[in-house]
Each structure stands twice: as structure tokens, then as C-alpha cells.
């Protein structure tokens, strides 16, 4: 009974100065809407980065012509790299099976394949995604890896013509054929990482060991240079998406806090006006023996109701936006995975947030303007 009475009183005051009430409701709506969309974007990005993180960083495809010894040697080499967290070997058969699994329902397409054209590969996971490029570069120019020879024409592979002597950290080599190297590019000569330090003209260049102090034993005179098309990396997106997620979090929180403060102040001001409009009634209520809380409840509920109305409107808006705009975006950025955010949870916290803003707003007004 009392609850219904208070509710009626609260709604009465809400509608009586409806301009202020609408203003307060709209600020709650805006702040909760920004909270909702911000949280949605943040969680989606988080989701996406954790997805990317779990994907492999480097995939190294193996030449079909490579011997078992060469494959074992490459595997041991990868295992020995300090940056590597773990590594999987995917055989040709497994690769084909994966392709079959991913093409369920389109088996006819696979049937057209003769034999198994897919290469075996090593899947490499790193401890630190920042080292993707460095590690990947070690497989460039590697003949076990399914890299094609760098060529200036279809059948004229480039060949190093310089001499890499014992202990040298720097040398000048001449690449036969057309030059394909740029400054700071990494490549390998006999399993040692080399960096192009200078590339003054087409086919002569200075190279240096990427890691100083390693022993160079290789002589690569006449070695053929292979490209990097047998190596795939996927880690670059992670850092970028991570950064966007963090900006969303920081910028979004700041904005939401600002808007929340504005909402609280506006609600508090609305309640203050209600108290003012009812000061005579409050005086009469006291005379007929109303307790303090009997007088306060309608104002508290007015605030809570303002918050609730704004938050409900925000929830509706968030749902609409999620279903239209964001779904379209995420279907285009398929790497985001478009996974559903904990929507129920999010919408509940928006409602909770609205109620909180309303209560704080009315508490503020009651403390300052309804001294009992």
C-alpha cells in the first residue's frame, strides 16, 4: 500500500515539472548509452584480441621436396629459439584433413584435387608477439621452407656472389641477376640471420649479422637466395586491436564518468525543485505526524524512477544499435569474430547504473534541501 502511494506521489512530481524530469532522464539516457556502447566495443575488442592471441603467430610451410632430415633439422632449430613458446608440426595429411573439415558440404571441390597439393608446416607460438618479425625472418631464404627462389625473371634465380668469411660481421656481397633487397631486410644464409645494412646500388649490398657475437661458419659463395613466401605471420593485428581496446576503455570511462556526474547533478536539481514545489505539503505532513522516511520516500523514488526511465531507454537504444550498426561492422571485420558480448549482463548493469545515478541524485538533494 505504502509503496503504491509513494510511487503515485513520485510519478505525480515527476510529471508536474516534466521539463526538468525529461532533461534529467535524457542525461541518464546519454550516459548509460555511452556506457553500454563503450562496454560493447571494449568487450568485443578484448574478445577479438584474445582470439588473435590464441591463433598461431608464424606458420612455416615446408617444401614438398624436403627430406625428413631437413624437416627434423628445421624442427630442432625452431625448438632451440628462445622466443618460441611452443610449436606444432602439421603433416601433409593433417593439412588436407583440416581443409576437408573446413569445407564440409563442398566435398566435390576437393574431389577435383589430384593427390595432396598441401605442404606440411610448422605452427609456431611466441612468448612475445613483438618478436614475430624477427623470428619470421629466420625462415626467409631457407631452402627447407617452401620459399620460391628470388628471381629477376621466371627462371633466373638470384645468386649471392660475395664471400662470407669466418668471423666477419660485415661484408659486401653481390647478388647475381636483379637485386631484390631493401635496407633493413632480414634474410638467412645457412641458418644465420643477416640484415641488409646498406643497399647502395642494385646488386651490391652490405650485410651484417642480426645478432652480434654469433659464430659465422658459413661460406655462402654461390648460394641461391630464396624469398619469404613460405612464411606467414598473423600477430601484427593483435597489438593494434589491443591498443584500440585500451583507448576505448580509457576514453570511454572518462566520458561516462563525466556524463554520470552531469546526470547526478541534474537529477539532484530536479528533486530539489520537487521538494521546493512541495515544501508546503512537507510542512503539513510533519504536522500530521509523518515520519522522516515517509516524507523522503517519494523523493527518493522520483530520483530512482528518473534513473530507471533513462536507463531503460538506453537499454532499448543499445539493443537497436547492436543489432543494426555494430553487426554490420563486425561482419565486415570478420577477424573480430563478432562474438556476442554478455548482453544480458551488460543490459542489467546499465539498468543498475541508472538506478544508482537516480539514488545518488536524490540522496544529494535530500541531504541539502530536506533537512528534517
Amino acid at each position, binding site marked *: *500500500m*505504502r509503496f503504491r502511494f509513494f510511487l503515485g506521489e513520485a510519478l505525480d512530481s515527476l510529471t508536474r515539472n516534466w521539463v526538468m524530469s525529461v532533461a534529467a532522464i535524457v542525461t541518464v539516457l546519454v550516459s548509460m548509452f555511452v556506457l553500454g556502447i563503450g562496454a560493447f566495443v571494449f568487450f568485443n575488442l578484448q574478445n577479438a584480441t584474445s582470439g588473435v592471441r590464441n591463433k598461431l603467430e608464424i606458420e612455416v610451410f615446408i617444401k614438398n621436396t624436403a627430406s625428413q632430415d631437413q624437416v627434423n633439422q628445421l624442427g630442432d632449430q625452431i625448438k632451440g629459439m628462445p622466443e618460441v613458446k611452443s610449436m606444432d608440426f602439421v603433416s601433409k595429411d593433417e593439412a588436407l584433413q583440416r581443409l576437408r573439415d573446413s569445407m564440409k558440404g563442398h566435398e566435390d571441390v576437393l574431389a577435383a584435387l589430384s593427390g595432396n597439393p598441401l605442404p606440411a608446416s610448422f605452427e609456431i607460438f611466441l612468448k612475445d608477439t613483438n618478436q614475430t618479425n624477427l623470428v619470421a625472418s629466420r625462415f626467409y631464404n631457407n631452402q627447407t621452407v617452401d620459399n620460391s627462389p628470388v628471381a629477376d625473371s621466371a627462371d633466373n634465380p638470384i645468386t649471392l656472389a660475395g664471400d662470407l668469411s669466418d668471423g666477419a660481421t660485415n661484408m659486401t656481397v653481390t647478388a647475381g641477376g636483379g637485386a631484390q633487397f631493401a635496407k633493413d631486410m632480414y634474410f638467412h644464409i645457412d641458418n644465420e640471420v643477416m640484415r641488409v645494412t646498406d643497399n647502395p646500388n642494385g646488386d651490391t649490398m652490405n650485410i651484417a649479422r642480426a645478432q652480434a657475437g654469433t659464430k659465422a661458419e658459413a661460406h655462402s659463395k654461390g648460394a641461391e637466395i630464396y624469398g619469404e613466401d613460405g612464411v606467414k605471420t598473423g600477430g601484427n593485428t593483435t597489438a593494434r586491436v589491443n591498443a584500440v581496446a585500451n583507448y576505448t576503455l580509457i576514453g570511454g570511462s572518462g566520458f561516462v564518468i563525466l556524463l554520470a556526474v552531469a546526470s547526478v547533478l541534474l537529477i539532484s536539481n530536479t528533486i530539489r525543485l520537487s521538494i521546493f514545489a512541495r515544501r508546503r*505539503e512537507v510542512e*503539513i505532513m510533519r*504536522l*500530521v*505526524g*509523518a*515520519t522522516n522516511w*515517509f516524507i523522503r520516500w517519494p523523493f527518493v523514488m522520483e530520483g530512482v524512477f528518473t534513473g530507471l526511465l533513462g536507463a531503460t531507454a538506453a537499454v532499448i537504444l543499445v539493443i537497436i544499435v547492436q543489432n543494426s550498426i555494430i553487426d554490420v561492422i563486425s561482419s565486415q571485420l570478420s577477424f573480430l569474430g563478432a562474438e556476442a558480448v554478455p548482453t544480458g549482463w551488460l543490459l542489467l548493469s546499465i539498468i543498475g547504473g541508472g538506478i544508482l545515478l537516480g539514488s545518488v541524485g536524490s540522496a544529494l538533494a535530500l541531504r541539502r534541501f530536506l533537512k528534517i
Partner: protein
Amino acid sequence: MIRFENVTKIYDPNIVGLQDVNVHIGRGDFAFLVGHSGSGKSTFIRLLLKEFEPSRGSITVAGRNLQRMRRGALPHHRRNIGCVFQDFKLLPNRTVAENVAYALRVTGQPARAIRRKVPEILQLVGLGEKMSNLPDELSAGEQQRVSVARAFVNHPSLLVADEPTGNLDPDTSVGIMQLLYRINRTGTTVLMATHDREMVDKMRKRVIALEGGKVIRDEDKGLYR
């Protein structure tokens, strides 16, 4: 029912409201509080309601000492006193029935009791037909009857009225007076502050006369004089 012992009320800055007042009004009594404007009648009544504290002395209402009363007990104290004012103090944008129901809601009465008691009491004051009117659709006399109904609906043991007929014509005043008289006959103590000489002389009830905040006369079956 009411006991004032050496009660003095000095307003800031040094204005005498009441001075050394000693009054005892028994349960079920009817008493007039008379005196010129500014003699302290309203001060007396507001002290009873504990709207403020006396500067000196002690006030006891229904056996409870007001100075020793906890803040939390104040609403209960007020529910036990029905009050009627010269300006009615009705809530302007609520119906007659809602105005009366207010006093019941405050005490936490269930909705059913409110639905039963409100028409009952409005019938008693002769306003059964005007339940859903707004106060400003009523005459002054009718408004005052609403206010009496509100004061009495909780059946308080004490009813105080501060110049309830001050804004009414003589005939209407008699109607209000009769209402208060009937309420007194149910056993409710009634204290009425008034300027109305004719009324006081006709009723021949106890008269407490104030002058400059002091009790100058207190007699049973008294006259206004």
C-alpha cells in the same frame, strides 16, 4: 492531558511569547485560549506540538514530557494530536478525500481501513457529497470542516484548534464550534484558541486568558470579557 509548568518562551531577539505559564488541562476537558493579538495563543499551541522548545519550564502532554522526548518519537506525538488552523492548511491539488486520507497514510493504515474511514468521517462533518472535490472548489466553512475531519480521523486523544473560526462568518463558525463540541463529547480533549467573544460566552466552558504571554485569568464556565 496537558501540563505547562513555569513555561517561558522568548523568541529571538528578546520577544516574549509566553512567560511563566502554569496550566493544567485534564483528559476530556474543553478549554478556550483567549487574548488579544500577540498575547501568546499560537505560541502556546506550537509549543504543544513541539514545533520548538520552551526557553524555560516543562511541558507534559498525555503523560509524556516533551523536553525528554527523543527526536524519533516526535511523529507519534503529533499523530496523537489533531490540529486545525485558521488557514485550514489543506493540500491544494488533492481531493477532499485525499486530504483526509493523508493523515491516515502517515500512520501506515492499510488501504482498506482508509477506504472505510474517510467517507465515514466526511459524512460526519456533512461533506459526504464533496469527497472528490478540490479544496478551492469548497467554501471556507466547508474547507474548515475538511480540516476538522482530517484532525479527527485518527481519533487523537487531544485536538487543538488555532482560531478555527477566524476566517468564517458567524453562522459557519457555529457549525464548526458544534463539530468541535461533538468531538469533545466523544472523550477527546479540545483546546481552542479564539477571538470569538460571542462563541466563548455562549459555550460557558473553561477560559484561559493570556495577556503579554502571561495567564491573567483561568476559570471554569468562564466568559470572554
